[in-house]
């Protein structure tokens, strides 16, 4: 069933989507839309609601409230028609590992009813794309992560779906394979395929046209990576490397001029009031308390920083007005 309110240029529209599992609110009033041919990345920590949203968009889960249109079809009313138009792939739940590469491709070719005359060529394309030509008869269980993932993508696009859902497709895959995978995604996007992809690798956000920041079932932002990065994080950002991070956090929380402190691996990112010499004040405090500073300088905020800052602000405001 097509909704006249949904234009052809909009591949996905989500209105006030809510999903509850018992008392737990997994998705809390999310609305957004995605134009055709765009890549939208869902970013957020584990359990934020990324996978649940994708599963609802694919018709695997029913929304509790709100409406979801994919390819102009109301997913809750007619999930079967939606499935003709989509491809779905997830790193966790993928192919039949006891089948060979070719057997998997043939299986999905049959399931998607790819016409007989087109199937050999599309299987060849998928094999080529996955770099598995010549390994058609290898059992999928014997393939390494990167190959498995590209084969999964190959299976998901055998029927040339206009919309593709990828749920953490790159998790647990080496960086080289991840880059190759994103190249594939971009070439699909160039062919006007709409792609929804979730990830918890913040660096992958740069590859998307738009980023949906999700935390605890809420959509915090939906912007292009450049707009997001240009966001005012409310001050300057300092990176600190020192010998005792725990002590430094305790000293800097509540320190005059310091707005926020967050740990990133072996570094601290500190948001400070702009142009007030906070940097030297911090250096002094640390020196007084015998913390050995290896590095302290101003850096450009990354999407990680913005995300952390936004999540913190969101959580604070929820604590203030529950």
């Amino acid at each position, binding site marked *: 069933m097509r909704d006249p309110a949904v234009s052809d240029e909009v591949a996905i529209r989500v209105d006030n989507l809510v999903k509850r599992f018992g008392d737990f609110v997994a998705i809390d009033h999310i609305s957004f839309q995605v134009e055709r041919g765009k890549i939208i990345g869902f970013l957020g920590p584990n359990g934020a609601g990324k996978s649940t949203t994708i*599963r609802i968009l*694919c*018709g*695997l*889960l*029913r929304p509790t409230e709100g409406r979801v249109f994919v390819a102009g079809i109301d997913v809750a009313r007619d*999930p*079967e028609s939606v*499935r*003709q138009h*989509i491809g*779905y*792939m*997830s790193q*966790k*739940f*993928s*192919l*039949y*590992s*006891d*089948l060979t590469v070719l*057997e998997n491709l*043939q*299986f*999905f*070719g*049959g*399931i*998607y*009813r790819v016409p007989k005359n087109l199937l050999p060529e599309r299987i060849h394309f998928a094999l080529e794309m996955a770099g598995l030509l010549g390994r058609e008869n290898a059992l999928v269980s014997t393939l390494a992560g990167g190959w498995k993932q590209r084969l999964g993508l190959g299976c998901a696009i055998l029927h040339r779906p206009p919309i593709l*859902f990828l749920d953490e497709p790159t998790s647990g895959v080496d960086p080289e394979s991840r880059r190759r995978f994103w190249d594939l995604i971009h070439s699909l996007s160039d062919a006007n395929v709409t792609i929804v992809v979730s990830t918890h690798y913040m660096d992958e956000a740069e590859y998307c046209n738009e980023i949906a920041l999700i935390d605890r079932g809420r959509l915090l932002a939906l912007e292009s990576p450049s707009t997001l990065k240009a966001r005012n994080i409310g001050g300057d950002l300092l990176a600190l490397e020192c010998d005792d991070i725990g002590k430094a956090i305790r000293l800097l929380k509540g320190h005059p001029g310091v707005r926020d402190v967050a740990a990133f691996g072996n570094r601290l990112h500190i948001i400070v009031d702009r142009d007030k010499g906070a940097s030297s004040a911090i250096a002094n405090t640390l020196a007084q308390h015998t913390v050995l500073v290896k590095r302290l300088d101003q850096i450009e905020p990354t999407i990680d920083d913005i995300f952390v800052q936004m999540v913190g602000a969101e959580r604070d405001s929820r604590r203030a007005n529950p």
Partner: protein
Amino acid sequence: MRWKRIRAIAVKEMIQIRRDTRSLIIALFMPLMQLILLGYGVSLDIKHVPICVYDQEGSQNSQALLKHFQASDYFSITALLGNYRQVKRALDSDLCRVAIVVPHDFSERLSDQGSSTVSLLADASDDNTANIAIGYAQAVVATFSGNVQLEAAGFGGNPPPQGGVLLQERVWFNEGLDSRYFIIPGVIALIMALVGALLTSLTISREWERGTMELLISTPVSSNEVMAGKLIPYFVIGLADAVFCLVFAVFWFHVPFRGTLFTLFFTTSLFLVVVLGVGFLISAGIKSQIGATQIAVLVTLLPTSILSGYAFPIDQMPPVVQTITYLVFARYYVTILKALFLKGSGILDLASPIFAMIIYASVVAFLAGRAFKKTLD
């Protein structure tokens, strides 16, 4: 329902069965194992009951009586004893089940009074065997007794006694009264029920367990297509197992098959629909393979082996239990198989069990079709 999708699933399922050792063992070795175990192991005939003899007299007459025992298929004399203490020990130590004691005045009383007694001591810890052995012993002694009377009459120069009622027995369908003939057709039902339900119980739960179900339900395949595609290979395997059982029963155990192959094929297909449907229902309801297997064994093996009438006749069960057996789908197939093998009944003679199976098959197919929902909720 699209044939192309059904075929894709059926082919995939067949490949998975071929590569799954557990499924292969269930499909190929279990029927053979069950046939051999149950065909040889379960016998309701009692033959060669071990007996011990304490012949106090040791005369020609007592030896003649013991020869009757020796000649019978039902007994074999395992020891000759010399006193009661040995008799007791023989029974205690399972050297024999039954002991015969011929008194020292056996011949004397026979010639003086025209009648005599022998004692029989039976180990009744297995009451069924004891009862049957006593019955056999009575028959042996009665034959001996008849011979003695005839001889006595001959000696006296009188004509042999006339009249009396003689029962002329004709046993139908299982002329040799061989309990294997009675058991084997039932074993086939047991095998089909077990193999069918066990194999299919894995088919949906395997996809849940391995996570492939999520991908499968994101495709346009319908739940009926999934069911059809998944059950076709098991249906074929079930029929192949049925053919194997038939061949094994007829050529190895020499059980007669007197019905038509068509009726067998038709009723077996019907039974398979029920069994596979039940397995599919279980599989759709229980998302772990182990759990599904256990439930499958519980709902097929137990009722089929106890309540289907394959070895234990239903009409000898208490009325309440008899009523319950109507719910055991295997009972109809067991009835049909026994009739087909031994009586050669036609499809019309079997109308009522076939009708019951059709009802059962429709209900199960209906439920199975609705059991599997394409959703993660």
